[in-house]
């Protein structure tokens, strides 16, 4: 645990300021979408397909319609004129990408268990849910496509209108000959195959939406448990066919998202379309087991990674072939997820030759999309597991192989073979700090002792050194990837007549603590009390522009926009103060909310007075507009590249196969540290989520395509009881890409921890000849691997 720290020269930044969001959340004052009391709202319930792949032969809604409390029941045929187009996919990654039309309700055919078939509106939630049971659907079942490689073979095509299960092939191969040459000349090669299982994001608050038509004017307010109110507004306008000027999207308190609420969902489209059709408020809250099938899943890839290395174990080339599971349809950014990792398969290593290919296929399963880390955990997993495999081949330690291959500090800014410019880094310093903190020598001695003593509890130490690209992103770079939007962020800072400060941000926090962190950025610059600053967000009527919150972008991009807007406001205040004091601006100092004349500190003009002057406008410099306000839309010049060393220690019970995580240490470098308390919270949650992938969580399907881990009794989200107290440290390498020098920390823990744990398990068992175990490393899987190895 780190103690109080302060970024040099600052007063507020770097302090462990308690989150101002928490009292509201803890006392229940905060309101989530389902808490909103909207008189007269109709409750919506969606009938979902119980089969993975089938033609719909009949739907009989008559009995459901006559049930008490039911107002309406609709199918695709009833609503096909109630929307303007299919569900949006905003990331057509290639010009020839196949994107089958996807509507809020199934059009004659269902393609996954959970696909919407009919919708009920009733006076109560229970009446709506009961009516679902009265709808009769006839299915002519088709064989489901569940396996990725089987899907690729195209022997059973899901969407016959596109003629193939392959959505797209995306390649990043700057120089194929050089890669082939490196492999031909390699002293060592490794060729690994890893499976990224599907994960259910499981945010604490399920999805929810409430659409309220205005009493006049044709306007709608959409309350949604979303990470992306701004994107949702644009997409709902286009998809439902409502003018964007008539839509206000509000994300009330949102209970986590992890990427699963970075989307536009059928229920949001249905609620708006039906509120318009019936001129009534419509509301829907997802049930927990519905969440498991109707909200996007994460990961879902087969990864083939090959490394070529010279005689010293220096890696000369990396070649990656992915097959990525899109699920049944493309949701908002489904096809782009593998691309977010595509540039990072060389990890933190100086690898000159690069080859990446991804083939993305449809399956009869819930659509996949962004899940905490999105693409980058997959890349980190593959390279960090493969580096350990290489170390075993070369006969050096996991520590040594990394030290031999790190991008050297003097090469920053570093031009990667994949075409990125890494902003800043000092990997060796970070790594050495982590190794020191961990006490590696004692651990290695203890590990050996246990093997020698024939202990049934073996120790394994796993290293994962990650780098990620976040702060998504320069808009021009996004354009080159065919992403449907920019990567800028908007901010407005205004100092009101009473000198209270409003900060309007386009980020959309759902648990991250932006209100606290953003007010710290402003307080730092202005030297005013935190309590005077209010952060407004997540309401498109208040914050009309924004790119929302995902991809660890909010601080690096949104925070920077706020910082710049604050600077502009301060500049304007300074001009007013100079005018009032009749001195040149250069002659003014500023501290703690007061301008003073250099050399005569008794001649002072407070910021509060400047705010009032700006408001009354009685005596402003010639040509100056009234009011103390600045709006900024800031487009970052580059990504940021946070990194860090994560080390896991596991104990493996060789009799039962059970793995216990006994220590976990993370030394992260996220650039300058705005609020260490928030950073640690993000790292803790992130580690837990990555450990969950390694040890616990898996969306398991049976051979008919039913999700059999559809409750939280079967889908094993770990709790604190399964995790050790995390040991955290840090290094600070400011990013030169933004004025705050920050990098992003929201996904770091998740990205790094999965390979750290898996490397630790393999490390515990490698002397038995075990090189890989599939995730999650359940006791049975580990036991089977040990049994097979010891039987040999």
């Amino acid at each position: 645990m780190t103690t109080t720290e302060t970024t040099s020269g600052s007063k507020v930044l770097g302090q462990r300021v308690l989150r101002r969001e928490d009292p509201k959340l803890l006392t229940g004052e905060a309101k989530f979408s389902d808490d909103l009391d909207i008189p007269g709202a109709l409750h919506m319930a969606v009938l979902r397909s119980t089969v993975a792949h089938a033609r719909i032969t009949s739907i009989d809604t008559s009995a459901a319609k006559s049930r008490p409390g039911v107002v309406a029941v609709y199918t695709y045929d009833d609503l096909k004129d109630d929307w303007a187009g299919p569900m949006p996919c905003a990331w057509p990654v290639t010009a020839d990408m196949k994107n089958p039309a996807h509507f809020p309700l199934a059009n004659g055919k269902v393609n996954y268990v959970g696909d919407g078939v009919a919708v009920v509106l009733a006076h109560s939630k229970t009446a709506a849910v009961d009516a679902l049971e009265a709808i009769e659907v006839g299915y002519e079942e088709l064989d489901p496509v569940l396996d990725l490689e089987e899907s690729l073979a195209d022997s059973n095509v899901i969407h016959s209108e596109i003629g193939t299960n392959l959505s797209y092939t995306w390649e990043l191969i700057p120089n194929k000959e050089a890669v082939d040459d490196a492999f031909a000349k390699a002293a060592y090669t490794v060729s690994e195959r890893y499976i990224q299982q599907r994960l259910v994001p499981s945010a604490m608050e399920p999805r929810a939406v409430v659409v309220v038509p205005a009493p006049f004017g044709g306007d709608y307010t959409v309350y949604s448990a979303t990470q992306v109110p701004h994107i949702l507004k644009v997409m709902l306008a286009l998809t439902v066919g409502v003018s964007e000027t008539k839509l206000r999207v509000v994300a009330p308190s949102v209970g986590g998202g992890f990427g699963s609420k970075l989307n536009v969902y059928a229920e949001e489209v249905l609620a708006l379309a039906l509120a318009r059709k019936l001129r009534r408020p419509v509301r829907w809250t997802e049930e927990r087991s519905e969440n498991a099938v109707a909200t996007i899943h994460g990961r879902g890839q087969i990864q083939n990674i090959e490394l070529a290395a010279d005689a010293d174990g220096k890696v000369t080339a990396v070649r990656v072939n992915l097959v990525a599971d899109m699920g049944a349809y493309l949701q908002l950014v489904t096809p782009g997820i593998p691309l977010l990792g595509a540039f990072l398969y060389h990890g933190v290593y100086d690898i000159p030759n690069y080859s990446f290919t991804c083939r993305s296929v449809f399956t009869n399963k819930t659509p996949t999309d962004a899940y905490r880390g999105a693409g980058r955990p997959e890349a980190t997993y593959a390279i960090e597991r493969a580096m350990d495999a290489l170390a075993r081949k070369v006969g050096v330690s996991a520590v040594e192989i990394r030290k031999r291959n790190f991008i050297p500090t003097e090469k920053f800014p570093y031009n990667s073979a994949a075409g990125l410019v890494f902003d800043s880094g000092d990997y060796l310093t970070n790594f050495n700090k982590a190794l020191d903190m961990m006490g590696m020598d004692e651990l290695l001695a203890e590990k050996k002792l246990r093997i020698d003593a024939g202990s049934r509890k073996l120790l394994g130490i796993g290293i994962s050194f990650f780098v990620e690209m976040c702060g998504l992103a320069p808009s021009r770079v996004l354009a080159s990837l065919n992403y449907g939007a920019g990567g800028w962020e908007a901010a407005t800072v205004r100092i009101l007549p009473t000198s209270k400060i409003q900060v309007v941000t386009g980020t959309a926090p759902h648990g991250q603590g932006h209100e606290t962190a953003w007010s710290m950025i402003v307080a730092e610059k202005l030297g005013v009390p935190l309590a005077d600053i209010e952060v407004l967000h997540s309401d498109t009527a208040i914050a009309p522009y924004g790119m929302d919150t995902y991809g660890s972008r909010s601080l690096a991009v949104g925070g920077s926009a706020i910082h710049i807007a604050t600077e502009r406001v301060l500049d304007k205040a300074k001009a007013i103060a100079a005018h009032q004091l009749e001195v040149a601006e250069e002659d003014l100092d500023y501290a703690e909310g007061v301008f003073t004349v250099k050399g005569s500190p008794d001649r002072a003009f407070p910021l509060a007075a400047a705010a009032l002057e700006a408001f009354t406008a009685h005596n402003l410099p010639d040509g100056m507009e009234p009011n103390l306000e600045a709006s900024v839309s800031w487009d970052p010049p580059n990504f940021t590249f946070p990194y860090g060393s994560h080390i896991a220690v596991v104990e493996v019970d060789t009799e039962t196969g059970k793995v216990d995580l006994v220590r976990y240490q993370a030394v992260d470098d996220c650039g300058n540290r705005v609020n260490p308390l928030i950073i640690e919270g993000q790292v803790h949650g992130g580690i837990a989520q990555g450990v969950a992938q390694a040890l616990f969580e898996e969306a398991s399907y049976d051979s008919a395509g039913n999700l059999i881990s559809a409750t939280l009794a079967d889908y094993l989200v770990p709790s604190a009881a399964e995790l050790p107290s995390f040991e955290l440290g840090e290094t600070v390498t400011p990013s030169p890409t933004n004025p705050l020098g920050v990098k992003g920390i929201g996904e770091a823990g998740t990205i790094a921890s999965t390979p750290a744990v898996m490397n630790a398990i393999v490390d515990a068992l490698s002397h038995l000849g075990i090189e890989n175990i599939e995730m999650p490393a359940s006791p049975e899987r580990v036991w089977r691997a040990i049994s097979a190895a010891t039987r040999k």
Partner: protein
Amino acid sequence: MFPSTFDYVRAGSVAEAISILDGSDDAKLIAGGHSLLPLMKLRLAAPSTLVDIGRLSELNYIEDRGDHVAIGALTRHRDLETSAVLKHSVPILSHVAGEVGDPAVRHRGTIGGSIAHGDGASDLPAAVLALDATMVVRSASGERTVPAANFFKGFLETDLGQGEVLTEIRVPKVSGGWAYKKFNRRAQDWAIVGVAVVRNGSTRISLVNMGSTPLRASASENAINQGASIEEAANLASEGIDPPSDLNASAEYRRHLASVLVRRALQEASA
């Protein structure tokens, strides 16, 4: 996650509960609700009426009765876990109660509900089986007792008939060693396999989640009672038993676990 519509009656006494049950063909008792309500929410159970006996204090007690301890059916897991009487005379039972679910579950769930539910994956039914406890059952026609060995009949099926209330569990005091081994992946989970060992003169071993009911590991019991080594006895843990396969474990792995856990439990109970 919404149950079908049902009627709700709170019974003021055991007699009243029995008479309501007798007047209906599918009314169900609800005690802590922690097994019944999940089934109802998944719509795997849809009783027309719930008869709430959860607050009947007449059935909430733990009493020392000389050679045995009598436990009222509505005693919460948490009360078993913290009972001085049990810790002294039947320590395995308070230990097992402390292994059930999480604190919220233990504050609501009752021993009677757990046993009446008769889930082969539950902890307390296996414990009372290893303890050779006796169930006291009341109905309109009076009271009868059923030994644990005859109580669990099949998947979620017990010797209880419609109109019968489990009122008391009588547990013999334990003088010898005991052990409970619960193997699961998360602290709050059900056992993937569990093993209870009670050495009270002879040795009794019961298994959790190795079949549709709690089971005795008879082959292991016979072996150990006839002087076999712990290792030999443990290897017989799943003899004659056909364990289920599910997401957490295949039948083969369950058999293996049963042997490992029986061995560990016997070692601990003998230490």
